[in-house]
C-alpha cells in the first residue's frame, strides 16, 4: 500500500513534532509512506475566503504531488475536508477524482482503512477532553453530532480508548466550534478569540489535563487563548498520543 503523506503548511512550520509522530505512527503499520517534497498547502485559506480561482494552481500542485498514491493521508480533518469536498477550482480529471476519493484524515485512515485494533506502545495516564474540529465532525463525520438524532459514535474516542491509562472527561458543549475557522481567526478576531476563551473555560471546568484533537489548527488557537488567559491546560494532537510520544 503506497501512502502519500501530506503535512499541512501550518504544521510544517509550527508543529513539526506532530508531523513526525504521524509519519512514525504510519510506519508502524504495513504501509509504505512517502512525503512528496514539493508540497505546500491544500488551498483552504483561499477557498474559504471565496477565492476559488486563486486556489486553482495550489490544487493542481497538490494533485500533481499526490495522484500516484493509493492513499493520501494527512493529520488534519479540515485539510482532508478541503481536498475531499472543495477541490472544485480545477477540471475534474480522473487524477483529481482519484485524489479526492482517496484522501483520508489520519483518524479515518487508522479507524476505517487500517482498522487498527491496538496501540500497545502507547500509554497515557491523563484526563483527556476530546476536541472535534468542525470540518472533521460534520464534514468527515468523525463523530455523531449533538444537533442530530443519531446513535453516539466517535472515531477519535474509539482509537484513544485503545491507549492504556487514558481517562475521558466530558465538556458541557461537546461539539461547539472553538472559533478558529481558518481565516476567520484573523479577519474576525474579536468573535474568534471570545469563542476560543469560552472553549478553554469549558475544557478547564471539565477537569481535563489534556485536550486532544485530530486538528492542530484548532489546538493552536485554543492553546494561544489558554496561555494568554493563564489557564493550565495542555494540548496534544491525537497522533502524538497514539504513537506514544507523550506520557
Amino acid at each position: 500500500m503506497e501512502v502519500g503523506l501530506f503535512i499541512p503548511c501550518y504544521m510544517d512550520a509550527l508543529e513539526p513534532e506532530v508531523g513526525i509522530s504521524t509519519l512514525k505512527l504510519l510506519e508502524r503499520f504495513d504501509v509504505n509512506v512517502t512525503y512528496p517534497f514539493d508540497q505546500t498547502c491544500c488551498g483552504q485559506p483561499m477557498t474559504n475566503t471565496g477565492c476559488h480561482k486563486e486556489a486553482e494552481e495550489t490544487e493542481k500542485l497538490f494533485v500533481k504531488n499526490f495522484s500516484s498514491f493509493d492513499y493520501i493521508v494527512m493529520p488534519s480533518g479540515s485539510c482532508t475536508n478541503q481536498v475531499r469536498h472543495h477541490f472544485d477550482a480545477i477540471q475534474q480529471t480522473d487524477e483529481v477524482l482519484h485524489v479526492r476519493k482517496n484522501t483520508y484524515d489520519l483518524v479515518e485512515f487508522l479507524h476505517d482503512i487500517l482498522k487498527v485494533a491496538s496501540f500497545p506502545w502507547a500509554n497515557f495516564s491523563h484526563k483527556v477532553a476530546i476536541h472535534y474540529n468542525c470540518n472533521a465532525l460534520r464534514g468527515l463525520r468523525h463523530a455523531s453530532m449533538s444537533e442530530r438524532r443519531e446513535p453516539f459514535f466517535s472515531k477519535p474516542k474509539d482509537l484513544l480508548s485503545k491507549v492504556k491509562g487514558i481517562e475521558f472527561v466530558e465538556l458541557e458543549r461537546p461539539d461547539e466550534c472553538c472559533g478558529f475557522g481558518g481565516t476567520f481567526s484573523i479577519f474576525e478576531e474579536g468573535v474568534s478569540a471570545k469563542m476560543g476563551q469560552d472553549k478553554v473555560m469549558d475544557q478547564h471546568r471539565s477537569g481535563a489535563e489534556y485536550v486532544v484533537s485530530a486538528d492542530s489548527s484548532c489546538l493552536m488557537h485554543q492553546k494561544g487563548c489558554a496561555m494568554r488567559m493563564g489557564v493550565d491546560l495542555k494540548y496534544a494532537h491525537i497522533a502524538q498520543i497514539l504513537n506514544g510520544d507523550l506520557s
Partner: protein
Amino acid sequence: MSDLQQEIQPKGAKIKGNKPVNQLEAANRFIAASAHQQMHDQRLWDLRKKRDAQMHLIPEWEELRDLASDIKSHTLDHLADYLEEFERNAKANGVHVHWAKDAQESNQIIAGILKEHDAKNLVKSKSMLGEECLLRQHLEEEGVTVIETDLGERIQQLDKEDPSHVVVPAVHKSRTDVSKVFVKTLNAEEGNNDVHYLATTQRETTRPYILNADAGMTGANFLVAETGAVVVCTNEGNADLSANTPPLHIVTVGIEKIIPKMEHLAVFIRLLSRSALGSPITQYTSYFSGPRKGGEMHVVLVDNGRSTRLASHKFKAGLKCIRCGACMNTCPVFRRSGGLSYGSVYAGPIGLILSPTYNVHKYRNLPFASTLNGSCTNVCPVKINLHEQIFAWRETLAEEKELSLSKRIIMTSLGKLFAHPKAYRMAVQTGDKLLSYLPHFMVYNQLNTWGRQRDIPTPPKETFHSWYAKNYMKKGKADE
C-alpha cells in the same frame, strides 16, 4: 446580576446608507458588554438544550426533517400552482387576496385597505415580513398608529430598536434594560425588574389599543393551499386578539410560506416550536379560514425578491425557511455577537444567506461572520444547507468583486506562494526568524490580529520539511 444591572445595553451595527455593514465592529462592542453577552449566550444555549431534549423524545425526528424538507422543495418547484390554488380557495372562503411584487407595493396595498376603512389604529402581531418591508414606518408616515402586541416586539418598538432574533426579538435585553424602557415609555415603576410585573405592565398598557383598534394585522407561519387558510403560531395569544378583536384582519405573508395540504401542516407544527424554543408546540396555533362574522379579511401575498431567489440555483433552498430561529440559537457567532450586530432584518446563519439577496453590497461582510462549522445546517428542521450557502456566497462575492480589498490582496499573494514550492520554502525557511516560521496568512496583514488576544505559537527549531530532509533523505525514503 449586579453587573447586568449596571452595564449599558450595547447597541447594534451602525448603518451608514448603502455602505457595507461592519458586523465585526458591532459584535466587538457586544462582546465588550460582557454581562449582556454572557446572558445572551446562555439564554440561547438553553433554548438549544431544550430543543435537543425535545428532539430526543421524537424517534422519527430525522425522518420528519426529511419530510419537511421534501414538502418544501416540492412546493417551491410548483410555487405558482399552489399560490393560485390558495387564492381560489381563500376567495371562496370570502377572503380578499392581494399580490405585492415588493415592499413598496405591499405597504401601499395595506395603507390602501386601511384608508378604505378609515382605519387609524392598527394592532399588529409579530411579522418578520413587516420588518423586511419597513411596514410600521410606512404606515406611521401615513398617519396610522401601529402598536406591536407581541411582548418582545413591543419592547423593541418602544426602544426604537429592531428585533434582534426572529423568535425572541428582545433576547439581548436584560430585565433591567426592559424595566428602563418601560419606565421611560409606559410610566412603569422605577427599579421594578420583576418579570411578572413587567409583562403585566406591557399587557395592561397594550390591551386598550387592542380593544379600540380599527384593524388588526398578523403575519402567517403557513398558508394551506388546499383550504385557503392562514395559520399563525404564537405563545402569547396576541395574534388571536389582533385578528379577532377589530373588524378588519389583514395578513401579510411571504409567498414561500405556502404548503400544499392540511396533512402537511402537522409535520411543520411538530417541528416548529420544538426547534425554536424546545417546547412541544406553541401555546396558540390558530387557523384562520375566513373573515369573522361581520368582519373582513385580507391576505397580502408578498414577493419582495423571493421569485428572484427561486430562480437562483445556489440560493433557492433558503426559501424553505420556517423562521424557527434554531440556526441562530445554535450559531456560536450569533450567540457572541448579538442579532443587532448584523444590521439586517434577518441575522444569524439564515441572515447571512438571505441578506445579500436583498442588497449584495451592503451585506457583503455578513457571509464572513461564520466559521463554517455546519451546526446550523444540522439543526435546521427543513434541512437548509446553510453553511454550504454561506460558503457559496463567499465565492459569489469574490466573483461580483464585492470582496474587501485586503482579503483579495492577501488571497492572491497566498495563491501564488502556495503554487510555487521553491518560493514557498524560501518564505518559510529564510528571513526574520519568527515571521518566517509563522504561516504566512497569520502575519500577512500588518495588524497581526492573531496576537491581540492569543499567544503566538513558539517557533520550533526546524520545520517538518527540513527534519525530513535530514533524517529520511539519507535513508533514501524521499521521492527525490
